[in-house]
């Protein structure tokens, strides 16, 4: 696969957003503000084709996500299609809406791994954050069923001001749930999270404490559980290499079939996304305007252009650059070398105690 004589990288992962429907209303939801309605969702046969095209393109892992993927009645069929395409199949679920019988059917269909999110280690707070009474208990039940089926379990703990003081309890809970991996995932401010930014934003002192806690917990639980931590963007010195570089390692298919370089890419105006209804995944990966827009590093301005970290972080996140500077080509202002970095430092210091704006479809 090559264009203009230059070998293109092959994607490793595909995020399959099967639906935007979700019973939870988490205020940090990363889905876009404009959700794809149910009537526009791809059908089972189209997903099966897309998964086969993904495997042929080099994709190794598919992440079945949403919304809540279990909101789809054909989740078992889609899982079976992913496995028969040879893909490593990961279910990313809220835990609500997956019965034990359905989970057994998913395991039978070849599901490789389950990731369940938890909102807090304290039940009442967890349900409040999810905007759903009883969510915590259901998540615990689902996790127990995953472990009983001997499927590997990852717990994704989304961290923000309301729970950042309980990182240690959250890791203890993940161990108690039988997880072999836990993600300490600080909220990233896209989609609904951007609306709730000041309510979710931890203070610098809280972030420093949490980072220290993770280091200590990694030592304490070495060999028992893998602790992956996603850095809190606004408090970082350098930006994250978003999606491992634009159009370089992964792609994202929305419920309606649009293919995005990352799940927030539609927040950038003027990008032209192609749909799996009109093009093969390979065509889209190679030549769709949205994928070629920021591929590589040639588009980057200074200070990125001459920066030694240019091939490490690719100038950071395009969506964040646009959201905070109005220019998607700019250096991600999370970077301390960005001329706009003062703005991020300022926003990181804005904490407001307001009610959450819940995501509802």
């Amino acid at each position, binding site marked *: 696969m090559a264009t203009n004589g230059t070998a293109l990288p092959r994607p490793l992962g595909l995020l399959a957003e099967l639906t935007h429907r979700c019973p939870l209303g988490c205020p940090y939801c990363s889905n876009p503000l404009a959700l794809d309605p149910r009537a526009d969702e791809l059908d089972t046969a189209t997903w099966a084709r897309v998964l086969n095209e993904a495997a042929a393109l080099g994709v190794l892992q598919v992440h079945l996500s949403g919304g809540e993927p279990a909101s789809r009645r054909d989740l078992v069929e889609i899982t079976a299609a992913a496995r028969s395409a040879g893909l490593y199949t990961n279910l990313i679920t809220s835990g609500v809406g997956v019965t034990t019988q359905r989970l057994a059917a998913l395991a039978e269909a070849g599901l490789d*791994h389950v990731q369940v999110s938890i909102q807090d280690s304290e039940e009442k707070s967890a349900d409040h954050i999810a905007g759903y009474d009883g969510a915590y208990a259901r998540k615990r039940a689902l996790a127990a069923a995953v472990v009983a089926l001997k499927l*590997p379990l990852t717990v994704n703990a989304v961290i923000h001001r309301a729970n950042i003081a309980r990182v240690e309890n959250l890791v203890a809970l993940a161990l108690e749930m039988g997880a072999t991996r836990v993600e300490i995932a600080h909220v990233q401010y896209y989609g609904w999270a951007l609306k709730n930014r000041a309510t979710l934003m931890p203070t610098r002192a809280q972030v420093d404490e949490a980072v220290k806690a993770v280091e200590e917990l990694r030592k304490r639980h070495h060999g028992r559980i893998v602790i992956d931590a996603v850095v809190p963007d606004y408090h970082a010195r350098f930006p994250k290499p978003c999606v491992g570089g634009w159009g370089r390692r992964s792609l994202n298919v929305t419920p309606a079939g649009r293919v995005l370089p990352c799940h927030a890419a539609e927040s950038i105006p003027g990008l032209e996304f192609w749909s799996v209804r009109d093009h093969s995944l390979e065509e889209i990966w190679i030549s769709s305007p949205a994928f070629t827009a920021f591929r590589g590093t040639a588009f980057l301005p200074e200070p990125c252009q001459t920066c030694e970290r240019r091939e490490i972080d690719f100038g950071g996140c395009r969506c964040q650059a646009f959201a905070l500077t109005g220019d998607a080509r700019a250096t991600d202002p999370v970077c301390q070398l960005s001329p706009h970095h003062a703005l991020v430092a300022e926003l990181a210091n804005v904490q407001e105690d307001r009610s959450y704006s819940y995501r509802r479809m």
Partner: protein
Amino acid sequence: MTEATISPDARPRLPRGVRLTHNEAQGGWVLLAPERVFKADAIAAEIVKRCTGEATFTDIVDDLAKTFAAPRERIAADVGAMLRGLADKKLMEL
């Protein structure tokens, strides 16, 4: 918790949710794990392929030493270090 060495009788195997697979498009062997992908070189792949849950650590080292006509102690040390590293990352059961 983590032990320093691997028992000669251990029967290493990949846990459920970890798979070794060959992928042409990605240019070789890869170890697929929960939300992670590790490229495996030819030697690592030869080791992991033998971790079936049936062969003991001793069997695996003997077999590799014979197949590659290499000194047994060196193989034991290399294989032991690799399996321990994988086990720490929950990518191998010992």
